[in-house]
């Protein structure tokens, strides 16, 4: 049941993605015993890969279930391309839950047809596209096998196809790489990037930070039902930079200097050393480099940029006491 959007309109959004594909505005969700989401607001731009991060039980799945219309928010609003989220958007959203599942007693091809039709695709279209996808992911010989006869990895692939078969413009992937061997994980990664190239937006919920750094354009970090951080990956990394540089070289380095401090020093064999040096405010990397050149033989010099993983851990720890205080108060 896709809306009859004119190609012109789609082209316009393609060229000028002004409205975010998805906006969450002050979303609250309360379960009997605990608060799942409190005042979460997000904007997910068109044609981007968005990382939704957070420790277990932070509220990621609750937010995803609201976006996929499995449950509703207690208050707040979700907008899909500026329009209040409603059942007609189901056809434009694809969802791969963390807990995978397929009908075990159904054949692969039939299953794909069924799920795609439930998402509003016509039978003929579903048939054609599922054939193409099965071929692409090397599953063609298995199309007439029962799902229970497939290996776990193959089932995961089938489920991935089921998620994207109806060509949704918003694809939500909860831990998409779990259960894949490295080769298939790469295959899926390429497909995800490919889908973005074709104009889809991907929400990525994961704990695996490497994949976030590699693929995501924007991230949001949710902890204890609150959004604690969001923005473009590069920008966040810059904000969390500590002006620390890694130096490897040969010689003896002065330990005390007014413009910088050595926060870690390791002696290596053959007179080599490894140092982590933090610059004080107003000192440029070139100042440090000049000083180093005068004193030691420099073999390596690079800025230490925090990984998303480090930022994640730091931010989660930072926000922990605050929420604990709040819990005691309530």
């Amino acid at each position: 049941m896709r809306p009859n959007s004119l190609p012109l309109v789609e082209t316009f959004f393609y060229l000028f993605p002004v409205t975010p594909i998805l906006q969450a505005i002050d979303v609250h969700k309360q379960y009997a015993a605990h608060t799942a989401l409190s005042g979460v607001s997000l904007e997910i731009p068109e044609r981007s890969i968005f990382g939704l991060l957070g420790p277990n039980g932070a509220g990621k799945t609750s937010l995803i279930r609201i976006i996929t219309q499995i449950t509703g928010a207690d208050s707040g609003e979700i907008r899909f391309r500026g329009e209040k989220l409603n059942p007609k958007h189901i056809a434009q959203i694809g969802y791969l839950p963390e807990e995978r599942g397929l009908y075990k007693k159904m054949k692969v091809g039939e299953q794909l047809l069924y799920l795609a039709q439930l998402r509003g695709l016509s039978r003929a279209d579903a048939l054609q596209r599922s054939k193409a996808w099965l071929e692409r992911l090397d599953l063609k010989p298995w199309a007439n096998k029962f799902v229970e006869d497939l290996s776990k990895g193959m089932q995961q692939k089938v489920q991935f196809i089921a998620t994207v078969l109806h060509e949704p413009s918003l694809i939500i992937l909860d831990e998409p790489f779990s259960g894949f061997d490295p080769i298939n994980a790469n295959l899926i990664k390429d497909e995800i990037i490919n889908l973005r190239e074709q104009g889809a937006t991907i929400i990525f919920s994961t704990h695996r930070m490497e994949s976030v750094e590699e693929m995501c354009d924007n991230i949001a970090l949710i902890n204890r039902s609150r959004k604690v951080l969001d923005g473009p990956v590069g920008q966040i990394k810059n904000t969390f930079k500590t002006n620390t540089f890694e130096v490897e070289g040969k010689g003896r380095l002065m330990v005390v200097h007014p413009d910088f401090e050595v926060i870690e020093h390791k002696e290596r064999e053959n007179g080599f050393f490894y140092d982590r040096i933090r610059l004080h405010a107003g000192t440029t990397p070139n100042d440090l480099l000049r000083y180093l050149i005068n004193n030691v033989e420099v073999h390596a010099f690079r800025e230490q940029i925090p990984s998303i993983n480090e930022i994640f851990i730091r931010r989660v720890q930072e926000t922990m006491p605050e929420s604990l205080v709040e819990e005691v108060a309530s």
Partner: protein
Amino acid sequence: MNYKFWLIAQREYLTRVRKKSFVVLTLLVPVLMAGFLFFIAKLAKSDDTKVDVIEVRDETNLGLTSRLPTTEQLLFLPAAGSLTEAKQSFQKSKHDGLLYLPANLDVQNPQGIQLFAKGNVSLRKQRAVETALDKVLSELKMKQSGLSQEQLNRLNSTVSVTSVSLDEQGQEKSSNAGATTAAAYVLALLIYMFIFIYGVQIMRGVGEEKSNRIMEVMLSSVRPFDLMMGKIMGIAAVGLTQFVLWAVLSYGTSTLVGTFVAKSFTSKSVAAATVTTNNSAANSGATATTTERKDEASATPAPTNGIDTVFKAVGALPLGTILVGFVIYFLGGYLLYGALFGAIGAAVDDQTDTQQFMFPVTIPLVLSYLIGISVILRNPDGPVAFWMSMIPFTSPIAMVIRLPFGVPLWQLGLSVALLIAGFIGTVWVAARIYRVGVLMYGKKVTYKELGKWMFYKG
């Protein structure tokens, strides 16, 4: 109901109908049914229509042998020689019994009559012989007291009672208590079985979706209500398909068996009749019945007097009401209980935990069946019958038991209205439990919790 509902119902239907177990069961039951019928028919026939040939060693000088009446079941032949000789020849013969009437038989107080048989004498055979003897002796007594044969003939009368039921419009219909009771019993059993078998299938299906973890994918595509109703309706269609196939196939196989049985028994009675050709008195009677039977056999495939009466009795039942009522209560009861079974499947994580919730759901079902086939069958218009046929949880079974006996229209209307209301109510409750339960994992659910789920916001 939208297209997603139909897709779901279709999938539930097709995956089940295509299963090997469905095909096997659908074919097996009519075959078993036919086998069972054949077995019963064979037993009944060999009992009923076999002509027992009884030799009579008559030592009295009353000429009792020729007076003993030949019936459809008994044929009396005089035995020659002494009792010992008669016994010996009887052992060698194919005859079924040897009746010994001692010389000093006192008509007023007959003692010492013996019936010899190979093996045990069946009660039935003994009774038949006794009746025959009784008739002959009492005729004899009456003659001795001075009644003429003509007077005797006039004394003989055959009594047969035809029961007639008066319906509300005062129209008369011949009724048959046996057929009515049997119809009530069968209808109740069918509904009971159907609700149980297919209700549990709904529960299993939901449980499977839950443990397969496909629920989340499904719920992001369809409303929980559509998913639940699609499953319930799809499985209902499976059940109806199975029942219709069973009915058609069973009818086919039974007809076949009927034809076969009729043929095989006709030839047997011919054989039995030929044995008796040397007896002039019995001969004409026996051949007459045989030819009659032959004619019937060639005219209709499965003709016995019994089946004929059954058809007549069934025809006398309010068939239209029964049929429409049966379908309504069949579906209404199934939907009402099916929704509850679906909710149980959604509420529990583990199939073994279903027991605690199954219990309260099945109690009204089991009770209505047990009370139905005892109390309601005995008094189909009593207060128990009335109230049980009004309460939606018991009415599907209670009312179908009452249907063959005739139910006032207003009661029927009220009961159906209540059933529909009850059905909507349980579906509402079940849909709420379902909606919350299907995504609830790793938690042992209590009744208190189920109560809370009903008032959760979407």
